[in-house]
């Protein structure tokens, strides 16, 4: 599959009409955001970003037909999803503020927020090494949502470049009020931004949600120490030591500078820590130091305001990232370790796949025609996306929708 290399930004304008018409799962999309009720969709803000920085906000569509027609006409570079408002956004009165009534709870995690700990790539780049941070993040958040809050309808989506989104779509998540969203967002936030180098502080007992997160981190941590080489240079070691409190720093500095590789240094740190613990030389407020450091390096870094606010817009699944050409595909958290962000279908790739498939079938048909088989002409037309690598992500989306539907029914009619 070398086809993704072929994506060229300048082709986007020609590819998008084809993509929306033949591949974008508009019907799924509509079904999702209707939640079994057409008026729910009609009250939803759906914004389009067009070429030349034109941005159409506060659009809403009364019917499926209206939505797709507009989609085919505008071929947006990006689709953003906003909240469900009490009045239809498009029918709003100028000067009167719209009142949001519901929205999925969303999470937005981006690798750029890890730039102080990832060394393999920077900025917009991403590889399977730093993707591990996203794997950890999605696992920790997903488990917390399920086990602590009993949210089960969570759609995880690759953001098209270097991040991930989660759409928590359970009814009681969509209806969260102005207290609920920030409460959950803060509950899941462990790193505190501020002047201090040390961003995590665990005093007293460690909360179950954090010890659970640590278990997940532990599976990855040795690899991260190596791959990200977090202690491998003098500068990185200096950074590490600056997190430590003054009163213990030198003790660790000595033993850690004696060895050279990242793994050896981490090992030296751990050994020293345990030794100091046995001799009671670790001050009480630092007894969770190892955990604090692991969390600082690997705990999910949420863009908390996206989660807190009900009116925040977020890019829709199955958009095409205009710079990379990658489709924002859903992924399964259980298999996130096998997800390769550089092997995500691009728009040029899937359109080629459709063409290739069609060409092949045509050839087959022609050969068959020559042999005069009667059955082929009756063949049912197969959906275009099924001919491409979009098949699996769309199946994942369908599965999500199926569970959502079951859940909605259960809620309405428990018997």
């Amino acid at each position, binding site marked *: 599959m070398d086809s993704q290399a072929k994506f060229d930004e300048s082709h986007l304008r020609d590819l998008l009409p084809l993509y929306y018409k033949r591949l974008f799962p508009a019907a799924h999309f509509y079904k999702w955001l209707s939640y079994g009720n057409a008026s729910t969709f009609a009250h939803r803000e759906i914004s389009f970003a067009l070429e030349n920085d034109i941005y159409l906000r506060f659009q809403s569509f009364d019917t499926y037909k209206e939505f797709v027609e507009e989609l085919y006409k505008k071929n947006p570079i990006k689709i953003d999803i906003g909240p469900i408002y009490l009045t239809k956004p498009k029918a709003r009165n100028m000067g009167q503020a719209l009142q949001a009534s519901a929205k999925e709870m969303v999470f937005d995690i981006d690798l750029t927020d890890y730039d102080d700990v990832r060394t393999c790539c920077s900025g917009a780049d991403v590889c399977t090494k730093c993707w591990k941070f996203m794997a950890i993040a999605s696992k920790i958040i997903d488990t917390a949502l399920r*086990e*602590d*809050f009993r949210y089960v309808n969570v759609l995880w989506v690759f953001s098209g470049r270097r991040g991930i989104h989660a759409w928590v779509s359970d009814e009681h998540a969509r209806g*969260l009020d102005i*207290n609920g969203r920030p409460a959950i967002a803060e*509950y899941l936030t462990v790193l505190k931004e501020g002047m201090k180098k040390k961003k995590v502080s665990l005093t007293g007992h*460690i*909360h*179950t949600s954090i*010890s659970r997160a640590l278990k997940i981190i532990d599976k990855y941590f040795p690899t991260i120490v190596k791959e990200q080489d977090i202690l491998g240079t003098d500068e990185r070691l200096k950074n590490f030591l600056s997190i430590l409190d003054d009163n213990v720093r030198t003790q660790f500095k000595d033993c850690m500078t004696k060895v050279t590789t990242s793994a050896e240094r981490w090992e030296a740190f751990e050994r020293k820590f345990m030794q100091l613990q046995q001799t009671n030389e670790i001050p009480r407020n630092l007894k969770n130091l190892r955990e604090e450091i692991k969390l600082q390096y690997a705990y999910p870094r949420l863009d908390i305001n996206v989660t807190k606010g009900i009116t925040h817009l977020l890019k829709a699944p199955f958009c095409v990232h205009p710079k990379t050409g990658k489709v924002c595909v859903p992924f399964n958290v259980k298999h996130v370790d096998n997800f390769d962000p550089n092997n995500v279908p691009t728009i040029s790739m899937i359109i080629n796949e459709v063409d290739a498939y069609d060409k092949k079938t045509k050839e087959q048909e022609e050969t068959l025609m020559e042999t005069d088989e009667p059955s082929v002409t009756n063949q049912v037309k197969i959906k275009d996306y099924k001919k491409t690598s979009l098949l699996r992500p769309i199946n994942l989306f369908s599965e999500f929708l199926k569970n959502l539907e079951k859940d909605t029914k259960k809620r309405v009619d428990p018997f």
Partner: protein
Amino acid sequence: MDTNARRRRVHTTVEDTEATLYNHDLSLYPKFPCSEIPLSEFEELAIDRVQLFRIIEQASLKGHKYFSDEWKKCIKDDMMKNNLKKFVRLLSGFNGQTELDIQARRADHISHFILRIAYCRSEELRKWFLARELEWFKIKFVSNSTPSILKFLQLNELNYQTISNEEKEDLKESLIVCTPGMNDVQVMMSEFYKVPFLDVWTLVQKRRVFLKEGYAYIPINDLVVSIQSTFRTTLSSKLVLMNRNLPNLDDERLSNLLCNLHQAYTGNEYTVSNDKDAINPADIDEYSKKHYPLCMRNLHETLRANHHLKHYGRLIYGLFLKAIGLKYEQFIEFWRSEFTKTMDTDAFNKNHLYNFNHQFGKVGKRVNYSPYSCMKIIMSNVGAGDAHCCPFRHFDVGRLRAKISECGAPSEGVSEIMQLVNNGHYQIACTKYFQYTHPQPSSNTINHPNQYFEESMNLVKDKTEKIVS
């Protein structure tokens, strides 16, 4: 509760039903009171509760940490000082059943409903009232013992689900690490309750509670968080509803009371009493520099500069002057001499004299008007060209900064004051300003310009007395 109660018979005895109605210090006030009360008591109860709430609010503004022991002590002390003994009784934790206890709960109940009527009128008032009600509920709640809390739950049919011993045994480790402030033994001793996590979102936010499948597991002490959240929801919707269906009150005194409660009744009213020392009009300029709060200093300086003040400026400054002890003749003379610098005496007599007489209570209804409190000044509308205002609230930042340093606040004081202003604590800013411009801080937070003046004068008096003796 009947708002036309004045015309009805007055009950003086506590009936049997009250003993059952008022059998617990804690209440969520589910029912409207149905006893008849005289208007005077109605007024008194309304003011008492506003005062109680002011005290609670002040305690935090004074810098005490919420629900700390000092915070609670400060509130209790202030309640005693302000004659709110009956409310203090509700904090005893004994849940007594004497006549006095019942009377106290009755006062709590009725005053709560009076304030509902008074405070449902705007978003801002509702917010303030709701916050205070929740704090008041919590203060009472935390004073109660476990058995009496259980009694309260039962009386109010609050069916909180406790977890079984087996479940507790299963979750033991989690409960211990997730419930701050409780050690292993305490966790095992306490009952734990299972509530929807949103009921205790404040605990969730701080990660101070164990969560499992959408439920929060809380010990009895944290139940208050959940009850508060139910209380908040119901009370808030009831207030909105009440505002929509507010009856037209046919009694002017009553409707005046209810509409102005928040602004008008905050501590001492500072109307003139006869035992006040008269002040010498010749001293006013000096007083304005040494003893006036900024609002009055601004009015005075504007008057001296323009020889005129607009309507509200005249009213607010006039009432202030009267309350600091300016006698009637001198009061009229004061205004006349200033105003006639730009108009002739005839014009003054024709256009203004009646108003000043009225202000002083000499003509018309002859009301002894109270001077404006800080709240009233802070909440008032200040238009262009108006000199009446609370400078801490209404001046723009640059002008305020210049003014307070011109008036003698040292630079570190200026920035501290500006910080308070930034956070909307105008009266605390004024209190700080007092502190920085006097040898000694005021004994209370400033909530009345006349209080400011009196406290400032007292410092001088103390000094002169010392010198004399």
